């Protein structure tokens, strides 16, 4: 099990060819209070850098981009009723999707925790 980070401020906790995906604490702080999350559905396939959802704060809407190619296997439906969880526990309870990774070689383009910390400064 390893956790990867993208420049779009997502984390990806990988176990074999599946992963849990969410946004980082840093991203949640930058967004401000989240009031709405638009998620895709189980079975939806996506490509790296494709839009896989929208997170809206009081201030603005921000797109969620896929860090790798894959398919959605589970959606955290609790976020629909409690989008504020993304501010409270973005790297835990408030995960956004579980996905199947279709091209594991793309993980090499992502950062590890130390790399991400350096990236956000």
């Amino acid at each position, binding site marked *: 099990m390893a956790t990867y980070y993208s420049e779009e401020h997502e984390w990806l906790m990988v176990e074999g060819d599946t992963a849990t995906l969410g946004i980082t604490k840093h991203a949640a702080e930058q967004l*401000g*209070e989240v*009031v*709405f999350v*638009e998620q895709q559905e189980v079975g939806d396939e996506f490509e790296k850098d494709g839009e896989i959802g*929208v997170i*809206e704060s*009081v*201030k*603005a*809407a921000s797109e969620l981009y896929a860090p790798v190619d894959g398919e959605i296997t589970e959606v955290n439906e609790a976020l*629909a009723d409690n*989008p504020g969880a993304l501010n409270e526990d973005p790297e835990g309870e408030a995960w956004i999707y579980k996905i199947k990774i279709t091209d594991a070689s793309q993980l090499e383009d992502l950062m590890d925790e130390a790399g991400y910390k350096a990236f956000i400064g």
Partner: protein
Amino acid sequence: MTSPKRTPLHSLHVELGGKLVDFAGWEMPVQYPLGIMGEHKQCREKAAVFDVSHMGQVILRGENVGEKLEALCPQAYVTLKEGKARYGFFTNPEGGIMDDLIVSNAGDHYFVVVNAALRHQDIPHMQANLDGVEVTEIFDRALVAVQGPKAEDVVGALCPAARDLKFMETTVADILGVECRISRLGYTGEDGYEISIPEDKAIEITKAFLAHEDCEAAGLGARDSLRLEAGLCLYGNDIDQSTSPIEASLGWAIQKRRKEEGGFPGAERVQKELAEGAARKLVGIKPDGRAPARQGVEIQCSNGNTIGQITSGSFGPTVGGPVAMGYVSAGHGEPGEKVNLIIRGKAQPAQIVALPFVTQNYKR
């Protein structure tokens, strides 16, 4: 690009942990550590202090200033009594709105507050068109808004005279030994004040307000969600050079004599729209779901035809859901009408509602 200007309260924003952004050429706090939702609720439930020093403060001196202002604005400023303030706007020859403003009769002069982004338009406009009037922009005073049901206690504790003012009244009084202009008005839908303070005392006085247990600092983020819930227009979003006051549902701000007599730029269009109705009008819109409808979102009627566009939309912390305003074409816009909002390509159901979204709590 020149670097953004700083208000006299800049160092206080930094000290309070404000998140500073460039707004209309000014470095302003969008929020503090409390956050937009917390600051919004603070203002609705207790009191909040906003730095609005980026707005233009202008003094008009001369003979018959009210009469001369009436040539630029559709408001009745001749009959504006000393100690009273009145909301208004400059109109263009096509009947569009050039900017909105507050005019106060301060006795020996008029005090005008205009939008930050339009200072550079409005001041030359007044200088060129108010013949024989000395138009002076004030650069050495902060403008601080204290808003909320506890605003009277917060300001009154330091300035008893503030308690005696009613909504849209203005006076001069001392706060901590320095003369300030205090006006009972604001942009949140709550009771409160806007206070013009000499710049060297601005931080000390603002800190004294913040020392009150019911008062916290709030940023532009909360100011925007508060004004939207209160159904108040934002220049550049809901009103601009192309929108007439009648389209913008601002007919209430044009006094009867001016409606009848005209005599302001674009009067022909305004009078025609008063008589025959406008081609579109600004209405409140409440999405049924949770997705906020932002500026630019298309509004469709139930048969799928486009009838207008959202001009302001966000999440309303007091409403507890998304709220929006937008223009819909004539024949639409009755409260209760069902519409669809096209958000990211999908039709989201919504309803036309009467403005404001929250009851205005002014001290009349």
